[in-house]
């Protein structure tokens, strides 16, 4: 079970989960990966057929060229040997015509094979891109908790590219080379056994060298990626934390870190260059050796009268034609290697099953009353971690109109409770019900429509403020958006911006303060009017008075809904109908504010700590905004 649902071990590590050391360069799995990509290409049977067909035709035209050249040479020479001049001139003209035709047709079919080959790659890439996107949107929070976002982005971009290139630069090129070398060999060997073998002698050597190089380069490429990622991290953190660097006068320290990472990468890059160069040069050399032998042995045969000069020229021309594709053999082999690594990494993500998903036959959740119940809920983040539960024995009930406050030290499990309600994670014991339905028995979409969580870390998308507020329902009517903005106390601020609600925010837009972001995030959730509204420490950066105003604005909304408020700030939740004090995943105190104060436990301690009375004036300075009844009313 764990293996099926869980994240593969190699994915768990933060950076460079695929460190080459984990990866056997002769790994046996790659064939299945390639087969899988090949199967994908079959979704485009016509394009594949045309690409392969035109490749073969282009190769045949190309193979004709040396023959026509040889003929032309012989015709030109033939006259010297005593033929009729007029015949020779006519023959030359014919040979030239054939040369021109073969050359033009080769070009035409090469164009077609490249175009269709490439387009199959692009179509597959487009499909996989969409599959990847869909998959990322359905994988569970537990997956994203463990896997570095940069790693996923790299898979979606670079690895996809590796898969895309497979068809045209690996498969189609294989067909091309096989046709050229196969048919060429037949033609040459049948023309002259010895010369034919000599002109092809470099092919097996080159094939062998590129396979060896391929294994090494693939392995090193992985390592290099890993080292470059470390360097990137050093630079990124340095720039992000530049104030710390400056404050500690730590530039020399940072430069040392940079040099260390960068020299590690350099050493590897050097090795890579070395391997690449040693192989490509020796391959070229082998080609020329073969050519020299053909010239030498062929020349002796011409002198011996066994073959004509034209035949010798044909052999040499044929080698010229083979030179390019055979050099590309390395590229092709590399494309195979790359596709198998990239495909492996890419499919690994595609094949994951989300931990949290719809059960077969799950029904739509229809809210009748909207009563939320936790029944003896246990939760642990990892299945093998039974002893270390994040939550245990949590039970409570909330009816529409009620507010539940949850408070407790950091890491006590407060946010986890919030995350269990929309099934961002599944409980490991007990159950959560809404109107008596186990939330695992209803569809995720209907459940999440009913539960709105204002998250602690409010992520804004690169889009206008308006689009961000309407994120959960982009079809919403203007009036609803406007109301949400007003209720979340966003309106005043946005009104002051020159572009108003059309102001671009998010990574590429203007930056908002923490409080503004949180207000936007609240607007985004309340606009959806969910049956259960959860504020997961989402007002921490909002001052107490504004928070009070927000609470007052959504009073009507809250009257028909379950509201759960998780906060460090007692003023945010002391009005709750029930307050749960969580410590190490358990409820240690529960009750209304006055009950808990009267009980004199942990809640009381916390209250005393936060609500410090100003000594001489009676004024309260700290987080005490909420307990003044007059404020925000």
């Amino acid at each position, binding site marked *: 079970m764990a293996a099926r649902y869980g994240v593969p071990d190699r994915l768990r590590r933060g950076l460079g989960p695929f460190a080459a050391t984990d990866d056997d360069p002769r790994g046996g799995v790659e064939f299945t990966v390639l087969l899988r990509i090949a199967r994908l290409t079959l979704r485009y049977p016509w394009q594949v057929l045309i690409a392969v067909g035109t490749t073969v035709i282009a190769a045949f035209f190309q193979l004709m060229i040396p023959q026509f050249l040889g003929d032309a040479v012989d015709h030109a020479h033939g006259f010297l040997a005593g033929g009729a001049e007029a015949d020779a001139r006519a023959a030359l003209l014919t040979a030239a015509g054939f040369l021109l035709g073969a050359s033009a047709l080769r070009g035409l079919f090469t164009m077609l094979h490249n175009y269709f080959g490439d387009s199959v790659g692009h179509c597959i890439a487009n499909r996989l891109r*969409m599959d990847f996107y869909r998959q990322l949107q359905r994988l569970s929070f537990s997956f994203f908790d463990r896997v570095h976002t940069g790693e996923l982005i790299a898979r979606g971009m670079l690895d996809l590219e590796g898969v895309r290139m497979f068809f045209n630069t690996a498969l189609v090129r294989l067909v091309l080379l096989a046709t050229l070398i196969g048919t060429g060999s037949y033609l040459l060997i049948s023309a002259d056994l010895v010369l034919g073998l000599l002109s092809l002698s470099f092919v097996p050597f080159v094939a062998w060298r590129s396979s060896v190089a391929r294994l090494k380069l693939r392995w090193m490429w992985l390592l290099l990626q890993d080292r470059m990622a470390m360097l990137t991290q050093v630079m990124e953190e340095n720039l992000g934390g530049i104030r710390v660097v400056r404050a500690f006068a730590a530039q020399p320290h940072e430069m040392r870190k940079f040099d260390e990472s960068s020299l590690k990468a350099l050493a590897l890059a050097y090795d890579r260059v070395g391997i690449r160069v040693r192989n490509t040069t020796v391959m070229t050399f082998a080609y020329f050796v073969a050519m020299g032998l053909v010239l030498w042995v062929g020349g002796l045969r011409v002198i011996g009268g066994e073959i004509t000069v034209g035949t010798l020229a044909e052999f040499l021309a044929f080698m010229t034609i083979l030179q390019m594709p055979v050099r590309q053999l390395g590229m092709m082999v590399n494309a195979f290697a790359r596709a198998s690594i990239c495909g492996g990494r890419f499919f690994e993500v595609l094949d994951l099953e989300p931990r949290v998903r719809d059960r077969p036959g799950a029904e739509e959740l229809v809210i009748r009353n909207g009563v939320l119940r936790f029944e003896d809920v246990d939760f642990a983040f990892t299945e093998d971690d039974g002893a270390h539960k994040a939550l245990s024995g949590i039970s409570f009930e909330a009816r529409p109109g009620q507010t539940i406050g949850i408070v407790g030290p950091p890491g006590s499990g407060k946010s986890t409770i919030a995350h269990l309600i929309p099934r961002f994670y599944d409980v490991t014991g007990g159950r959560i019900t809404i109107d008596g339905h186990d939330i695992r028995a209803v569809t995720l979409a209907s459940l999440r429509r009913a539960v709105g969580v204002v998250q602690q870390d409010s992520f804004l998308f690169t889009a206008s403020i308006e689009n961000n507020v309407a994120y959960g329902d982009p079809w919403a009517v203007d009036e609803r958006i406007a109301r949400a903005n007003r209720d979340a106390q966003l309106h005043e601020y946005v009104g002051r911006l020159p572009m108003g609600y059309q102001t671009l925010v998010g990574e590429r837009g203007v930056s908002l303060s923490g409080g503004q972001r949180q207000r936007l995030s609240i607007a985004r959730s309340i606009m959806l009017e969910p049956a259960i509204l959860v504020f997961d420490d989402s007002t921490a950066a909002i001052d107490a008075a504004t928070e009070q105003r927000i609470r007052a604005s959504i009073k009507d909304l809250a009257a028909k809904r379950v509201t759960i408020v998780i906060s460090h700030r007692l003023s945010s939740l002391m009005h709750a109908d029930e307050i749960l004090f969580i410590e190490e995943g358990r409820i240690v105190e529960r009750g209304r504010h006055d009950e808990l104060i009267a009980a004199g436990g942990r809640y009381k301690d916390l209250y005393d700590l936060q609500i410090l009375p100003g000594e001489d004036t009676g004024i309260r300075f700290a987080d005490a905004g909420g307990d003044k009844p007059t404020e925000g009313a």
Partner: protein
Amino acid sequence: MASLDATKTAPAPGERPPRAVVGSQISHFEEEMFGRAFDGRVIRRFLTFLRPHRAAMAVAIACVLVFTATQVSIPLLIRSAIDHALLGESQDSALLHVLALGFAAVIAVNYAANFGQEMIVGRIAERVLIALRRGMFEHLQHVSLSFMDRTEVGRLMSRLQGDVNAMQEFLETSVFAIGDFVLLVGIVVVLLILDFDLGLLTLSVVPVLLVVRIVWLPRAREAFLRARETNSIANGALAESIHGVRTVQGMIRERVNYDLYDDLAGNNLRAHLRATKFAQVMVPIVDLLTGSAMAIVVVVGGAMVLDDALDLGVMVAFLFYVQRFFDPIRSLTMQYRVMQRAMASGHRAFEVMDVPLEVDDKPDAVSLETREGSIEFRDVTFGYVPGQPVLKNVSFRVAPGETVALVGPTGSGKTSTISLVHRFYEIWDGQVIVSGHDVRDVTQASLGHMVSMVLQEPFLFTGTVFENIRYSTTQATREDVERAARAVGAHDFIVKLADGYETELDQRGGNLSLGQRQLVSFARAIVADAPILVLDEATANIDSYSEMLIQNALATLLKGRTGMVIAHRLATVRNADRIIVLQDGEIIETGTHTELLARGGLYAHLYSLNYASFDDIPDALIRKAASQAAIAT
């Protein structure tokens, strides 16, 4: 509850919502599109990075020339073999053996030169790449913070990575471009020498190719850029969806996003198919021209051979040259694109290195050696935008061992004040004096050891807890680190982490709570052990448990040091020896908490407003308080 979905208008399938986008729709490719392929200044700058490798470069260029010469001479050897050994008056196998030996020698030299050029260029490219990146990175360590403030880390990273890599591509290919060019010239010269008329006739196809390419290039370039642009937009959207996946799932935006992403992916697919068309359309044209050139050689050259005006070997050599002739032309025009990209990238890379160092050590800067810390501002005026000072004639003194709290509304100049102690920015007028020296007269490194700084947002680096606390004080021992952690009360939670002090922190310390990160950053400041501590206290968004610890830690931190604290908490304010109240860049009050309350000025008024922090008070209330204060005093 039934009204929940009533306001939602059901969308037709496939319809795109009005208020939704995925990813940023902005592109940055214009400059590349119209960029120059040759920019003298960029080239000159670039050459400075090559200067250390002058000798190696000379060898590499020599290798390129030798390599090209051997390439050109191979058809000549074939020609000699045909004309002199095979078809000469007396067919001569002895001469053929000599020529074969010559061929062997040529390819041996070819191999050595090839090896030399590839190895040297490959390695220099890697080194220059690193030097370039290092140069940029190091420069960024010293540029003023006002530059860093307005520049996104992501943008700098794309220059450090993408632009540097584009330069590498350029460097690697440019040496081969020289080779290609020499090869082209070599072939032209040899053709004309072998037979001027036939050579000229054969070369007549070249202008045709040039015209075709000139017509083709701008269109094709537009198509290629468009493809890159759509790709980067789609990838940006993917990245955003991964970063914001928790919100996407929480708000059930999967379907909408999938559709929108499908549009982007579709654009990308179409743009790529179009680009492929443009790329491939050149193939048959080049082949047609090659065929024409061969036809010319066969018809005209063949006729000349028949007329005894040309040696057969020369005709064969011509045929070989024609086959190779278009390769350098093709790669040279490809080179144009690489160069264009490299110029744009180089421009961006050097732009980073040219950011002026506003804050720099004077040539005669002294090193601050005292352990006694004092701070004095004398009539300091400073701002970020000319004409808009944020500090106006600020003067104050913090005596050794004293702790001063800075309070005031947002925008009053608190953060600027503490930044100036560290000389993050250059002041316009007045003097900032630390331990008796103007900060402009001392080295920044020694100032960094004199003043340690704790920022509001604790920034941690990837690495272990131990490495983070030690940070740049690399001589600190394990005991020093533990002692510091104990002093700030961080030891207890650290030893409870999975690997104690050796626990690896996630990105930016994501696996610690904010309060814990704050404590680690305090411990870091203790280890650095500077006589002056400047601290920007975290605002409300810290939990009360950590707050208690932090208050204690703060006291420890300030013990025996000169301290300047931007205070948000009552306890901090009251524990300070003195309070400085800033408003609109001016000091309006100073004194102890009791004195200031008694005075009934702005401090007392703001205090009575009962906000969590002065930063939260709406402008209107501040103005009101200020006017009341003005009346009262």
